[in-house]
C-alpha cells in the first residue's frame, strides 16, 4: 500500500455495470463495461465522453451508490465496499452537477459547512470551527459576509457551487468526484469554478472530473480517460489524449468540437479535415 505524495490512490479494475429493469420482461442496459483506469494521489483525471457513454455510472460505483455487476474499485489498496461508510466518505467526497439541488432550501447555507466539520473524527472548539469555515470560504474566493447566514435561493449557482467546494475543503478527503460541476453555472463564473478545482489539487486532493466538455477537460486534467458506449476508448496523459489522440473515435470527437479561433469548412459535404483522414474516408 502506498502512502505519501505519489502512488496509486484509486484503481478501477474491469468494472462492469449492467442495469436490469422489469420483473416479468427483464431488460438489460449496459452502463459500463470492462472499465479500468488508475488515479494517482493529488492528480486530476478526467472522464470524457458524450451523453450515455457511462461516465456517471463509473462515478456512481466509485461513490458506492451502485454495486458493480463485476469488477472492483480499489481505494488505497482495499475494495471500496469493504470500508465502513463513515470512513469511506471521509476519504471520498463529491461535487454534483446541480448546486441548486444539493442544498436543503429550509436551512441556511452555513449548515452544510457545520455538518461537514461535525462529520470529522476530530472535535473542534466553536471558535476553531468558525475559523476553519472562514478559511475555507476564503480559499474558494467567497466573501463570508456575503454568504453566511443566507438561504440557498439568495445565492447564485456559482456561489452555491463554491460553498460545496468549501465543504469539501473542510472534509479534506483524498478524492473528490466532480460530475459536470460547471454545467449549471453562468458562463462568466465557470472559469472561477475550474480555477478553484485546480486549487483543490494544490492542496493534495485528487479528483475524478467528469465532463463532456473537451475544453474544460483540457484545462484541468492531468490524465484523460475517453469513454464511448460504456467502454474506455483511449486513456493517457491529457496532453497526449486531447491534443494528439491515436484512436479514430477520439480524433472524430475532438474534430467535432467547435473552436473559437478556427472556422470549419462547411461548404463541402465530406468531413472537415482537422484530423488526418482515416482509412474509411
Amino acid at each position, binding site marked *: 500500500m502506498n502512502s505519501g505524495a505519489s502512488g496509486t490512490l484509486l484503481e478501477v479494475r474491469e468494472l462492469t455495470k449492467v442495469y436490469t429493469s422489469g420483473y416479468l420482461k427483464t431488460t438489460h442496459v449496459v452502463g459500463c463495461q470492462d472499465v479500468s483506469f488508475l488515479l494517482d494521489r493529488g492528480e486530476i483525471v478526467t472522464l470524457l465522453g458524450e451523453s450515455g457513454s457511462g461516465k456517471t455510472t463509473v462515478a456512481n460505483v466509485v461513490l458506492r451508490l451502485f454495486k458493480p455487476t463485476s469488477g472492483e474499485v480499489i481505494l488505497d489498496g482495499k475494495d471500496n465496499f469493504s470500508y465502513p461508510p463513515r470512513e469511506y466518505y471521509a476519504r471520498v467526497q463529491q461535487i454534483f452537477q446541480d448546486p441548486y439541488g444539493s442544498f436543503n432550501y429550509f436551512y441556511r447555507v452555513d449548515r452544510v459547512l457545520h455538518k461537514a466539520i461535525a462529520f470529522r473524527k476530530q472535535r473542534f472548539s466553536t471558535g476553531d470551527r468558525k475559523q476553519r469555515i472562514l478559511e475555507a470560504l476564503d480559499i474558494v474566493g467567497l466573501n463570508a459576509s456575503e454568504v453566511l447566514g443566507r438561504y440557498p435561493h439568495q445565492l447564485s449557482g456559482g456561489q452555491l457551487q463554491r460553498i460545496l467546494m468549501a465543504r469539501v475543503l473542510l472534509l479534506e478527503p483524498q478524492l473528490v468526484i466532480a460530475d459536470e460541476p460547471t454545467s449549471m453555472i*453562468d458562463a462568466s*463564473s465557470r*472559469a472561477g469554478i475550474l480555477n478553484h478545482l485546480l486549487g483543490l489539487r494544490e492542496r493534495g486532493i485528487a479528483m475524478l472530473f467528469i465532463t463532456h466538455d473537451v475544453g474544460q477537460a483540457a484545462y484541468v486534467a492531468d490524465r484523460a480517460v475517453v469513454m464511448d458506449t460504456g467502454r474506455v476508448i483511449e486513456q493517457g496523459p491529457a496532453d497526449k489524449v486531447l491534443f494528439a489522440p491515436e484512436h479514430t473515435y477520439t480524433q472524430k470527437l475532438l474534430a467535432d468540437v467547435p473552436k473559437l479561433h478556427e472556422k470549419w469548412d462547411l461548404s463541402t459535404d465530406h468531413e472537415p479535415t482537422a484530423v488526418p483522414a482515416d482509412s474509411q474516408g
Partner: protein
Amino acid sequence: MVIQMNGQPLVVVEGLKGHYVGMFGVVHGVDGVSLTIEEGEGVGLVGESGCGKSTLAQLVTGVTGPMLHYQEGTVQVDGYNVYDIPEETLRTEVLCKRLSYIPQAAMDSLNPVKRITGLLQDVVKERTGRRPTSDEIRRTAGDHFESLGLSRGVLDLYPHELSGGMKQRVVVAISTLWNPKILVVDEPTSALDVSSQKMLIKTLAMLRDRAMVKSMLFITHDIPVARQICESLAVMYCGQLVEVGPVEGVLDAPQHPYTQGLLASIASYEPQQGGQQWLESIPGRPPDMREPPPGCRFHPRCASAEARCAVEEPTEARLADGRSLRCWRYMGGL
C-alpha cells in the same frame, strides 16, 4: 461557402424595449436594442443566461407572450413593421412567408402521437386551409428533407424514434419548408452532443448555402458555435447590446470589457494554440434586471470603470471595422 451580402437590410430593429410583468415585478428583458440584419448575413447573438437573448428573439418575431410586453421601438422585417400591422397580416405575411422562429427546446414540441407526416399535414392545413394527403407531404417535404441531408424515411417515424439531434434537425427542416427569408433560431445546439451539434451546424449552413434561407439570427451561449456559422456577432449584457461587429474582429480583438471578460472565461478547446490560456472569470454576478444599475450596466463588474460610467449611460461608438460599441472608453478618440 458562398454567401452574398448585398447590403439590403432584412431586419431592422430600432430602440426596441420589452419587459415581463408578473408578481415578481417588472423585468426589463430588452432595454433599448438596435440591430440590423442584412440580406445574406448570419448574426450570432451571445451572452450569459438571463441577459435577454431569447426575449429579443421573441420580440423580433412580433408575437409577445402572456407575460412579455412590447414597450417601444420598431422592428422591420422585410419592410413590415411588426408592431404596426394587423395580427392577421403579421401571421400571413411575416410569420408564414418571411420569418421562421425556432424557439428554445422546439424539438420537444413535435406531436408525440403523430408521425412527422401527420404533424406536417396539420402545419400545412393551418397555413393554407387545405389538408394535404400524406403522399403529397412525402413528395414535397421529402425533397426538402433530402436536400438537408435527412432521409425521406424520417417522415414516417414518430418523434420518440428520433434522437435529440435528429429531432432538432427535423424541426429546422419543418421551419424552413417555405423558404423563409430569415430564420430566428434559439439555442438549437445546447442540449446536443458535439457530433449531433456539428450535424445541426452543417444543416444550418446548408440552408443558407442553398439559398433556402437568406439571413439568420442565431442565439446561443456557446460562442465557438456561433463562430462557425455567423458573419456577425452581437454581444448582449443585461438587456442591451454592448458590442456588435464582424465575428473575426469581435473574437480576435474584443473591445468592450464585457466581451473581453466573457472570452477570457471560456474554456474552449484550441489545439492550434497549443493548450490552454489561464482563465479568468468576471467578478460579481449578472445584475437584477428589475432594477438595472444606472449608467453603464456593466460598471459594477468592470475593472476599468471610471466615475462617469456609474452615472451616464454610454452612447454608441463606431469603430473602423464597422463595429458598434457601448463603452465610455471609446467615446473620445475613435
